[in-house]
């Protein structure tokens, strides 16, 4: 779970969380988290509410004190540094602009606190106003701005004193979908341009995918998955992550030696997985878009390619979703599966038809350990 950015560039650890804990009475809001955050990366904490992602961010900001553990920045402990001396920028969920100050004075606030000269202050505030394209709104009060504009002021205020780290706590949650996507693009470009380290908290997996270089998935106070969005989606480290990110089909199979198993009595092949006992229960995970559904005639026409599996099932429902179509099926043994295909590919099935569901062995992840509750964690697309 210690994935490192290997993009060729020199990755340097800026922030280290070491065995971080936060307990409220007997409840562990954050449970022994260890994480290295690289200098200049865009890292997202993704999880449902109560997963510990916001508490972890709060500890980074200094509003919560860890029950135990260390927070290191460049190797120096931050735990006993009060929040106003941490030199961290933060953008809050509800913007949290100062209602009695104009846009300009909001952005100038951190500089005024730091007693910078008026000339320097003006220069930097002007630069920030330009960066977030709010030059013409400088003299308005926050209440006179739209939600998107308010959020841009909040970002400018957090960046104006050039902090090492920018924390963002669900900053786009209150905005509508279209505006959110625009601001996500702006934010990504801003990050690329400034090269600042951003730690971003969200419960929206699509937002996490769009924005971040790495995603840390939180559940019950622990980080259960860490890596690029691509890796986490294509090769989820465990059944929880598979279920949480996107949609997934889980098949319970019995292992028979290395790479072979039986699903509801039919033989299937699986990835080579070391250390399996004969007859052990194993979970296969296939993404709906990686599976194919063929009518009996189609299946008879097109022979099963090498390295593919095929099971028989009955169609329950076919749904048209615009660019794609889904087909839910149930196998003879009662396992429900979903197959997804681009509409252009066509899916000429009717409910009640018998179909052959095929998938490539290489596309199915194999899990030997899982909790039953992990299997229906789908957060849904927001």
């Amino acid at each position: 779970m210690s994935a490192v950015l290997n993009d060729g560039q020199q990755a340097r650890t800026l922030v280290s969380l070491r065995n971080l804990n936060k307990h409220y009475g007997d409840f562990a809001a954050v449970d022994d988290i260890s994480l290295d955050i690289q200098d200049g990366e865009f890292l997202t904490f993704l999880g449902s509410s109560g997963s510990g992602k916001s508490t972890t961010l709060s500890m980074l900001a200094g509003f919560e004190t860890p029950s135990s553990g260390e927070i290191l920045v460049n190797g120096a402990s931050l735990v006993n540094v009060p929040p106003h001396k941490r030199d961290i920028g933060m953008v809050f969920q509800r913007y949290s602009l100062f209602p009695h100050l104009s846009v300009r004075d909001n952005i100038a606030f951190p500089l005024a606190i730091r007693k910078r000269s008026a000339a320097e202050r003006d220069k930097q505030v002007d630069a920030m106003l330009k960066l977030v394209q709010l030059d013409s709104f400088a003299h308005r009060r926050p209440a006179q701005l739209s939600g998107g504009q308010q959020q841009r002021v909040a970002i400018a205020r957090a960046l104006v004193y050039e902090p090492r780290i920018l924390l963002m706590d669900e900053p786009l949650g209150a905005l509508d979908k279209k505006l959110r996507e625009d601001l996500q693009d702006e934010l990504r470009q801003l990050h690329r341009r400034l090269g600042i380290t951003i730690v971003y908290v969200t419960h929206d997996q699509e937002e996490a995918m769009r924005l971040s270089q790495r995603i840390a998935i939180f559940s019950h106070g622990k980080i259960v998955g860490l890596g690029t969005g691509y890796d986490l989606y294509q090769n989820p480290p465990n059944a929880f992550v598979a279920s949480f990110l996107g949609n997934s089909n889980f098949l319970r199979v019995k292992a028979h030696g290395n790479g072979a198993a039986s699903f509801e009595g039919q033989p299937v092949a699986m990835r080579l997985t070391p250390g399996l006992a004969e007859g052990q229960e194993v979970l296969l995970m296939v993404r709906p878009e990686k599976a194919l559904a063929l009518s009996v005639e189609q299946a008879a026409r097109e022979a099963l390619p090498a390295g593919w599996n095929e099971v028989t099932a009955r169609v329950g429902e076919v749904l048209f979703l615009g660019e794609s179509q889904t087909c839910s099926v149930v196998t003879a043994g009662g396992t429900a599966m979903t197959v997804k295909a681009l509409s252009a590919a066509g899916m000429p099935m009717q409910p009640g038809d018998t179909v052959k569901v095929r998938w490539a062995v290489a596309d199915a992840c194999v899990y030997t350990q899982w909790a039953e509750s992990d299997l229906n964690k789908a957060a849904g697309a927001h």
Partner: protein
Amino acid sequence: MKVAINALQTPSGAAAGAKGAAMKHTPPLRERWRGSRNLLPALLFLGLFFFAPLIGLLLRGVLEPVPGLGNYEQLFANSAYARVLFNTFSVAGLVTLISVLLGFPLAWAITLVPRGWGRWLLNIVLLSMWTSLLARTYSWLVLLQASGVINKALMALGIVDAPLEMVHNLTGVVIGMSYIMIPFIVLPLQATMQAIDPMVLQAGSICGASPWNNFFKVFLPLCRSGLFSGALMVFVMSLGYYVTPALLGGAQNMMLPEFIVQQVQSFLNWGLASAAAALLIAITLVLFYFYLKLQPESPVGNSNAR
């Protein structure tokens, strides 16, 4: 106990292991009482000048002139004192009833009339509430006296032959106090009525309720919490009112608060005054407890708690 022990252990641990990965950072006890230090000034002030004198006063009821419950026995056994208790409760009850009867239509009208008018009516209620109590009582004294405007008007209209005695007796007290209490009924009641979704009443009539049924079966029950808390508050306040009864009431028909002051100022009988005060406080607190039970929301609950 566990918390206390942790608190004893942690300060030294924090000093020693500033770099230890498994160290504890804040003493849990301090965490538990976070922010309570700011209470100290006000607590000290009230403790010194409110709670201590209050307890001191209550103690005198069982200590003076001799230790024991003699004062309480007197309070209930003496028929003159029992009369005071009876006066207090009957006046408070009557005042509550009258102010509810007058306050209800006013609160209702404020919610019904167009906004501008409603605001004016509400301002009248607020003005009357925040106008000097003494000024209003004085005004009633003048209005109700034998040669006052009201008696003159009644006589001119031929309703009565001789002036009615409306001051220096319980009639005056009831009139003056009902007048003073109306705002305390109107404000909570109006807030409750304002919060009722008109759609609910529409739903009532669509379900077949006649206007009368709708009023008694839907509207009135929805107003109940505001009505009860207002009435309870008025009753409690009436029990403890001093100024208006002292000025508009007579010397024979006293209420409990006047009785207490009289015992202290004229007879220096602190023991009996204290017993009466204890009784008044006990009744007040019990009724106030019920009042709090009627309030839906926590007064200090923070809507944006972290």
